[in-house]
């Protein structure tokens, strides 16, 4: 049985899909980043999120431009190259009731931004952090980024001689609380993972292979559409069931072949076993499986790791639940006059 659906024209909060759109993209036709933007739009629409309750962040790059192309009604900040995590961290305190979506590129995250990327994972900021991973610097015309595979040859750039950085391995070594990989060519999975990420109370890393059709889309490149299509291997058939809906698992799979995980807000993740059962709770197994897939030349996708036990950054700060910091007024923020005398008396 299919899940409850909206009436087709609007979602449950009465918004039309175009109210989740952004400006017209200026990215290349066929760029993976555009399809991810579309899935962000779809996921937010289907999750019935009020656009004003989302904040968007990005660094600098083609990927980082894309927040201008979705969710026009959300606030956004296109920050500096590699330093989106810090801005998102500070901004998150303005109003902790909001949800945040960040888009970064592989260069933005794994080159100039590696330090901030690792530290924001440590802090478990509540943020959907999407790495639109194409192995190159798109916006500066195709130089290798740190995720480019060793031995990759590009016409103008020659051959890449360095070891690649694997975003997922970095997230695992930093013990991030939600770690997934996907492929821009696999729209459905991207969307379902996005929905799950949006309900996660902590940092959700989504490493999405997102081909750069202009500079790195030759079939032998590990960030190309062709390669992705041929080598994608899903860890599980992943779907997200919002808390409003009943979980119905259709009959294709025998009992025991499905794993369900409940998120903080009561939504459920349904992981249907494909080849073997995979437990995203086991970080060490995740490392092993990811490394194996890298060695075998497979693009392993799905929810790789999930830990719902660690508190998010905001939670650690003991802020009022009922109203956001950025609406507080002088009355709350400025200590009373009488306190000052006591202070002055202490100043000796």
């Amino acid at each position, binding site marked *: 049985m299919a899940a409850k659906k909206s009436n087709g024209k609007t979602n449950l909060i009465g918004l039309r899909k175009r109210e989740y759109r952004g400006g017209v993209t200026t990215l290349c036709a066929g760029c993976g980043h555009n399809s991810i933007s579309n899935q962000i739009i779809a996921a937010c629409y289907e999750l019935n999120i*009020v*656009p*004003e*309750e989302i*904040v*968007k962040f990005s660094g600098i790059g083609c990927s980082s431009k894309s*927040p*201008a192309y979705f969710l*026009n*009604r*959300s*606030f*956004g*900040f*296109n*920050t*500096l190259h590699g*330093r989106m*995590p*810090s*801005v*998102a*961290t*500070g*901004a*998150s*305190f*303005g*109003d902790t*009731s*909001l949800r945040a979506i960040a888009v970064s590129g592989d260069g933005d995250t794994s080159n100039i931004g590696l*330090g*901030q990327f690792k*530290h924001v994972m440590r*802090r478990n900021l509540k943020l959907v952090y999407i790495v639109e991973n194409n192995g190159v610097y798109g916006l500066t015309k195709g130089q290798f980024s740190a995720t480019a595979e060793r031995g990759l040859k590009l016409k103008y750039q020659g051959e890449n001689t360095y070891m690649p950085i694997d975003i997922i391995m970095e997230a695992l070594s930093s013990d991030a609380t939600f770690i997934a990989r996907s492929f821009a060519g696999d729209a459905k999975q991207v969307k379902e993972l996005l929905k799950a990420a949006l309900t996660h109370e902590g940092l959700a890393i989504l490493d999405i292979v997102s081909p750069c059709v202009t500079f790195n889309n030759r079939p032998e490149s590990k960030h190309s559409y062709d390669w992705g299509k041929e080598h994608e291997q899903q860890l599980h058939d992943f779907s997200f069931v919002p808390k409003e809906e009943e979980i119905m698992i259709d009959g294709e799979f025998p009992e025991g072949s499905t794993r369900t995980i409940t998120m903080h807000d009561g939504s459920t993740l349904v992981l249907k076993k494909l080849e073997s059962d995979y437990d995203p709770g086991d970080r060490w197994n995740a490392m092993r499986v990811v490394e194996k897939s890298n060695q075998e030349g497979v693009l392993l996708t799905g929810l790789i790791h999930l830990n719902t036990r660690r508190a998010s950054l905001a939670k650690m*700060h*003991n*802020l*009022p639940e009922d109203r*956001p*910091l*950025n*609406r*507080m*007024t*002088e009355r*709350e*923020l*400025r*200590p009373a*006059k009488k*306190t*000052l005398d006591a*202070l*002055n008396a*202490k*100043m*000796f």
Partner: protein
Amino acid sequence: MTIVKTKTQKTPVGVKRVVNDFSFTIATMNGSGSQTSNLLLLRALFKMGIPVSGKNLFPSNIQGLPTWYTIRVSKDGYIARRDETEIVVALNKDTFVEDLEKVVPGGAFYYADHLKFNIQRDDITMYPMPVLKLVKESGAPTALRDYVANMVYVGSLAGMMGIDMDKIKLALEFHFGGRQKPIDLNFGLIQAAAEWAVDNLEKQDPFYVEPMDATDGLILADGNTSAALGSIYGGVQFLSWYPITPASSLPEALIHNISDLRDDPETGEKNYAIIQAEDELAAIGMAVGAGWSGLRAITSTSGPGISLMTEFIGLAYFAEVPVVIWDVIRVGPSTGLPTRTSQGDLTMVNFLGHGDTQQIILLPGTANECFEFGWRAFDIAERHQTPVFVLSDLDLGMNQWMSEPFEYPDEPMDRGKIHWEGDMEKLQEKWGRYKDVDGDGIPYRTVIGNRHAASSWFARGTGHDEFAVYSEDSQVWEENMARLIRKYETARKSMPEPISENMRGAVIGILAFGSTAAAIDEARDYLKEAGIKTNSMRVRAIPFTAEVKQFLKKYDVVYVVELNRDGQMHQLLTLEYPEFAGKMVSLPKHDGMPLSASWVKEAVMAEEQK
């Protein structure tokens, strides 16, 4: 309060007492805990009503290298550093010889008697102190002995110079927050040392302290703590920082004081957040993010951190994000002298960021002003939607300063032009994030969480039009950048105005800023004695206000005194007022030390005699 009685030395026959007008320096080793005893002395003197100042000269090291603490008592109220010291207390064998040389003829030299040096000076008095013996007798636990040893010099000096035991007790109680055990242990030792000194040493130097009432109503505070407290009263909501000398004590004071003043007493909930960032790039990034989200955000650092923040400052300037940056300056360039004071980041901050930028800079000169600019900086930043720098320095930030007490903000918080849902409803025309509705260059902003459907906008460091839409259009760019100049000119009108001190008949001006005020005030008295009358102006902000120009106009010659090599304030003044360049004389000093009045006097005299 118990009145404590101990003996003090009688004035030796034939000696003319010098009362409340000398300096004494304590030479110890870093990490030996002498900071506690030095502060005890300083505070006791302050409580005796004597104008006092303390300067800590410490190395960039945690333990073992020489460190000096100089306390100046001045009946005339001078609190600048002096180049001379009448009394030295020597506890560090590594510097024993040079410390001995430091004492001015007629002065006194206290030393721990286990430091055996066969050197004598017969133009001063030598006072050996049986430090080890007294400590042993005090019954202090072995682990604490090194630490309490410092109380011996406190007691000896007290006995020999006449420092009030009551006041020392008071200072001890303050220091230990009333915990009786350490108070008793330390005070016991101090008393014993004082008695031993009075009984065993023969006073020959003329230096005494006597109670006055010149510190009534004043406070003793360091600039960093003052700034932290001021920020708390300014409603700080977000602090991100990275440790660096001499700025660390600002965020640390904030952390240690804010809970009491700001947490909800019932729920314990906080209306602020503090994060120790992974570096300064992240610290400023977080602060910019917080400022953008509508919080009063601050970060504090010193030169190396400012360097790292450069790109983000450019973004904040151009995207118009309010954020407050304290730069507690130490000696640069580069890692430089991390524990020495300087005013050397001025031009750098003024021109910070690639492309055309103009930064607002506040220049506090007293602890009281650190408090004031602590809160006021937020108002200025939010009103003008731009980064505001506050340039303090190691001397002002980390040393104790006698100052007017903190004053409660005399203005309500100014959150600037900010639209919430209700405001948006009322608008007649389309709101544009970067639209200059009022002609003052300052647009209206909205922040996240605003649920009005037209309130959102996309912030960026790239070219944008009045509606925050990406634009590469030449005219749009030029107009926006011209508006930013307009905004800066608006800011100029509400900057803290300079403070002037006048003398009748002066034809010479001295212009300075920040922590050098005390030395300049004092120097002006000396210059007057030497027949040179001066008026002074202490600039407190950039952009310069109209008074600065008037001051430059008025005098035949204006000496611009500052603590850096290149005369950076002089450079900025020259740039702004080239018409007066001919009469501005740059007097820069960059030895890492707090300025002394005698240097200022000599420098001016030398120029005047040219």
